[in-house]
């Protein structure tokens, strides 16, 4: 019961721990199997892995069940677990066109090299609650609906009919951005690979201004809602960058490659499911700069799992941050590195907002002494310019009044 440090904090939190140790199930209700969470709440698992910064579907499912579906809490558990794992090595970079895509769309051209695959999406479905299944235990799982195998690539391509006559789709498709490079619409790739070590914000804290690798990493771990909020603000005119058309959005599996410790050769140790977005848009002509620049720019988003709104938001903000770095115009929140990167980490923002639940009576009391002296209710003379007051007795009711009135002011402001 006792919440402050009066006495009994240990008993209270032990009791709270006993209460959360049991999930709120009814007597005849089975616990969700982790497999059910992993498969049937796949979007939640993907979001938790992304925000938790750890690709681990089973752990994310465990966290979600333990947190009773609280996404922030589940992502936090995964992040905390991540801190206990040593960094053993680094994977090789992979190109996005190595992805085995289960879904691929582009909004820049009617037809794109490699074709489009709508795949599993709710984009063009009608969001009607399936009321017929309200009282049953839901529908029957499609027997072939494995989300990890080949089957979820059997989708719907460019209006082709469903069924065995599906056009060939091996999952590997060229990038629209490469086609745009061939058309000289966007800058060519650098002739040599840039071997600059990318920033790792989990090993060294961000020092502003940060480079692009730092902000991309930060946003890949960012909170979905926060990124959507800022990206949306940029789209509505609060800053923003150049880029507003999706050149490539793909969901699929990327290989994870390491150097084999004995042979020294790269080897694939597994695949991760990711969403990758490349956005393009017209660059703003720069004044005074005699060089001709390509008319379009490119920005990038990559997140764990299938989380398209986060990947698109990340690409929009990548563009907005690039515009902010070039120092053009009047920076809006979405153009401001510190604004975007400090405030989109869900673990940090929810932690600090909720820390207000902790006792604060020392800081509150310290401020209260100042207020009491100012108000003269502590028996002290108001504004003592020499820092000294005469002693006196406080009126007990006056203390209460002042606390009440300062609350009132805070509420009104």
């Amino acid at each position, binding site marked *: 019961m006792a919440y402050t*440090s009066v*006495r009994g904090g240990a008993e209270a939190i032990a009791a709270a721990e006993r209460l959360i140790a049991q999930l709120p199930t009814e007597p005849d209700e089975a616990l969700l199997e982790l497999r059910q969470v992993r498969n049937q709440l796949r979007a939640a698992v993907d979001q938790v892995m992304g925000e938790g910064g750890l690709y681990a579907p089973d752990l994310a499912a465990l966290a979600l069940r333990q947190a009773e579906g609280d996404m922030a809490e589940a992502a936090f558990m995964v992040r905390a677990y991540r801190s*206990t794992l040593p960094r053993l090595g680094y994977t090789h970079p992979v190109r996005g066109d190595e992805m085995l895509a289960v879904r691929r769309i582009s909004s820049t051209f009617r037809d794109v090299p490699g074709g489009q695959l709508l795949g599993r999406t709710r984009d063009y479905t009608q969001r009607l609650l399936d009321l017929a299944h309200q009282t049953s235990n839901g529908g029957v799982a499609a027997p072939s609906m494995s989300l990890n195998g080949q089957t979820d690539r059997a989708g719907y391509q460019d209006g082709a009919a469903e069924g065995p006559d599906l056009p060939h789709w091996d999952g590997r498709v060229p990038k629209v951005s490469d086609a745009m490079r061939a058309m000289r619409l966007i800058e060519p790739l650098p002739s040599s690979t840039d071997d600059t070590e990318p920033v790792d914000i989990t090993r060294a804290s961000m020092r*502003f201004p940060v480079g692009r690798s730092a902000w991309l990493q930060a946003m890949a771990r960012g909170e979905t809602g926060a990124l959507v909020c800022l990206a949306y603000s940029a789209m509505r005119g609060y800053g923003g960058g150049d880029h507003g058309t999706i050149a490539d959005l793909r969901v699929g599996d990327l290989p994870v490659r390491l150097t084999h410790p004995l042979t020294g050769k790269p080897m694939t140790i597994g695949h991760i499911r990711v969403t990758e977005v490349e956005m393009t848009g017209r660059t703003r002509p720069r004044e005074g700069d005699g060089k001709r620049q390509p008319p379009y720019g490119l920005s990038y988003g990559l997140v764990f799992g299938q989380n398209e709104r986060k990947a698109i938001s990340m690409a929009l903000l990548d563009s907005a941050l690039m515009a902010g770095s070039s120092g053009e115009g009047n920076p809006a929140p979405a153009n401001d590195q510190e604004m975007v990167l400090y405030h989109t980490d869900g673990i940090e923002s929810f*932690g600090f*907002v909720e820390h207000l639940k902790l006792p604060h009576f020392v800081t509150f009391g310290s401020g209260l002494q*100042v207020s009491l002296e100012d108000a003269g209710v502590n028996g*002290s003379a108001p504004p003592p*310019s020499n820092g000294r007051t005469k002693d006196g*007795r406080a009126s007990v009711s006056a203390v209460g009044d002042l606390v009440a009135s300062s609350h009132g002011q805070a509420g009104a402001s």
Partner: protein
Amino acid sequence: MIAPPAVAVTNGAGKPITGYNYAFLDELSKKAIRRALFKAVAIPGYQVPFGSRELPIARGWGTGGLQITFSLIGPGDVVKVIDQGADDSVNAVNIRRLIERTAPDVGTTTVTAEATIIQSRHRTPELPLRAEQIMVYQVPLPEPLRLIERREAETRRMHGEADYSRMWVALYEDIVRNGRITRAAGYPALVHGRHVMSPSPIPKWDLPRLHMAANLSLFGAGREKRIYAVPPHTSVVPLAFEDFPFAVERFAGKRCAICGSQESFLVPTPSERGETFYVCSDTAWCFDRARAQAREDLPR
């Protein structure tokens, strides 16, 4: 008078957790944090950026202090954890339990003099610390200039050039508007004559006890990813003007309702009957005094 509790705090710590490294963090992470600590000690009051790790305690709930504690503790250490001065405040209990569960050979205590490391939120113990004791403060906002300049890149420049003019102007404007400096807890101070530092939200009462203290004080801000330090025998001078000197909180004749103290930081506590009484925020100090008084009162 209110009677102090008869027994010391117990944690109900429960079983050690399995599947985790000693003191939670992996050893390479602890090493990286210790390197940041060395740098912090070498440049008193300077905020050293570090690769802050997530802990199973939420951001803003003491992760900076706890990362320092985790990277320092080992067998033979005795840790005391306080929040608002109290050993049994919920968050202090939770942090101490995590230390006990992940580092089972580390002792814990509520007795200030017994501790080798004291992790604290918002208070410095009333009892002066010895040279071999380490104070670890949990810091929510390490940047003393943040409220006058929101951009990190700019505050770093200001620290780098010791350009604290806007800070002085802010304090001056406070006097112009309010007749005095109205800042309370977390009062800014100049460390070693060079860096302006936030002492974390300790009351002004505690600030003079950082000055030339015998012990090492370490400050950890987990969410903001900064570590800083006040080494032993280092000057910590509150920012103030000659004609508006720094002054600690005054309690205008109040005394603690438990131990009768008039020489400790008191916190007001409204009762259900409408009265307000004051008690020491440092519970270990308060209960020690009260128990000593109770012994003296016993018939011999």
